[in-house]
């Protein structure tokens, strides 16, 4: 089924009239067939206008340096939810909770400063031990010599347990976290995760009530190392309104859920494509320092971020007008051969592996990047320690989305 880069597909993409090139088609991402679109745009039209798409007209920014220019210019390129927010699909105006990822300075800055210290290196060290114990328990429970789905048994379970650890969330209820995260980001519709917008909002209210309960418990107890307790006791956070508290909490859950999950699957999948790289790492586990950021680059768990132009500006020689929708395709910039050598390959010992776009740059740069890296490092350290021989049995099924670049399943077997 790997029709990804068959010549005819590539040829078809390169022969399209330029003005009909529209990479924002969820089906392309589901089929992993978006690459030739971006290759062509980087070569022929790096800042590209698509007049007609299911998401309306939009600009594609496809080269590393142009993406950096947009991401660092928040004065012109707005993240405001009321203008459409941060993804190509316009955000609903009635979205219930304020999140600083979809705000501009100065409000963004004030909120971010409150949350950021919670996932700073010093605090992460407190959580590392529990996260490692839980990762070990999951790895040791996996079947040997038998096919299973890596996404469900490992990636989802690990990320969910890690979230539960971070929030000290009642462990038996942990899959609620995954559910709320999925519901918060889904588009309601028949046959979808939720059928109606009413159902969606009802589930988010349930999430809100649950977390208010935890907050009330923790605010009256001595301070602990979990995020809810830190928010409840922190000097700068304890006076947040319930709305702010919940918005920030959901942002942390959503931010850390699919992204980390898909990096865990993406790493294993990449090693199956580049087995010699895994052997290099196996021979020298110290290379994990460069391998983890390289996996995150190669996977690019969020394919894009969106901005809305607040004023006219020229970018790459193109006239962007106030009000235009601008898509920073991280998935393309991370494969920009001008910045990254052999960008399509996973290389565990790159010279500058941390220079990638997966976490964005500028004032919105991912707050959870160190946490994500720590989680991935722990899992791969434990896999290497056990020298698990994991065989990927087939191609994964991918998510139908131009935003979340990830996997629905990946069949594997552990030899031995």
């Amino acid at each position, binding site marked *: 089924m790997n029709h990804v880069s068959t010549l005819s597909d590539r040829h078809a993409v390169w022969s399209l009239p330029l003005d009909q090139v529209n990479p924002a088609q969820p089906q392309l991402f589901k089929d992993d067939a978006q690459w030739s679109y971006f290759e062509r745009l980087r070569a022929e039209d790096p800042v590209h206008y698509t007049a007609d798409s299911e998401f309306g007209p939009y600009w594609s920014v496809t080269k590393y340096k142009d993406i*950096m220019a947009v*991401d*660092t210019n928040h004065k012109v390129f707005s993240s405001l939810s009321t203008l459409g927010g941060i993804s190509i699909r316009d955000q609903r105006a009635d979205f219930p909770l304020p999140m600083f990822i979809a705000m501009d*300075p100065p409000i963004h*800055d004030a909120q*971010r*400063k409150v949350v*950021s*210290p919670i*996932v*700073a*290196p*010093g605090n992460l060290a407190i959580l590392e031990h529990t996260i490692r114990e839980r990762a070990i328990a999951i790895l040791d429970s996996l079947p040997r010599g038998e096919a299973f789905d890596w996404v469900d048994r490992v990636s989802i379970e690990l990320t969910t347990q890690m979230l539960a650890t971070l929030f000290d969330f009642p462990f038996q209820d942990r899959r609620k976290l995954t559910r709320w995260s999925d519901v918060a980001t889904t588009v309601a519709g028949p046959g979808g995760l939720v059928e109606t917008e009413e159902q969606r909002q009802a589930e988010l209210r349930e999430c809100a009530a649950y977390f208010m309960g935890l907050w009330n418990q923790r605010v009256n107890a001595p301070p602990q190392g979990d995020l809810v307790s830190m928010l409840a006791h922190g000097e700068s956070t304890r006076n947040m309104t319930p709305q702010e508290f919940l918005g920030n909490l959901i942002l942390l859950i959503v931010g850390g859920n699919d992204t980390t999950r898909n990096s865990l699957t993406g790493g294993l999948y990449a090693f199956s494509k580049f087995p010699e790289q895994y052997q290099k790492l196996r021979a020298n586990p110290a290379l994990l320092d460069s391998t983890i950021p390289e996996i995150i680059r190669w996977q690019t768990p969020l394919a894009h971020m969106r901005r809305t132009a607040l004023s006219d500006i020229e970018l790459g020689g193109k006239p962007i007008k106030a009000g235009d929708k601008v898509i920073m395709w991280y998935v393309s910039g991370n494969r920009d051969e001008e910045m990254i050598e052999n960008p399509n390959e996973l290389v565990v010992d790159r010279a*500058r592996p*941390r*220079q990638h776009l997966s*976490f964005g*740059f*500028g*004032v919105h*740069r991912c*707050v959870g*990047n*160190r946490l994500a890296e720590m989680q991935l490092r722990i899992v791969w350290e434990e896999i290497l320690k056990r020298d698990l021989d994991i065989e990927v049995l087939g191609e994964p099924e991918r998510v139908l989305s131009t935003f979340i670049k990830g996997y629905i399943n990946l069949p594997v077997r552990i030899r031995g």
Partner: protein
Amino acid sequence: MAKITFIEHNGTSHVVEAENGMSVMRAAVDNNVPGIDGDCGGECACATCHVYVEPEWQAATGARTETEETMLSFAAATQDNSRLCCQITVSDALDGLVVRTPDGQH
């Protein structure tokens, strides 16, 4: 040319010869000084090149830019002498510069 000393959080020092015109971040990263990541390559857009400038060098290294101020405000464990060292340019006047790195970049 300037000789720059980086002192890690655990006390280990690293002395680096840096050429005029390059940034202090670049001097660190190109010489594999641990504790400075420089994820954005010097665009003042990641705050992973955070250092503490020794007080006697604060005047010579100058003041923070507006963008630097904003990015630093999101970093962990900042102090009055915190700088993003991609925004400090090496010159003869900085020969002997001493900076310290935090316990982690965030």
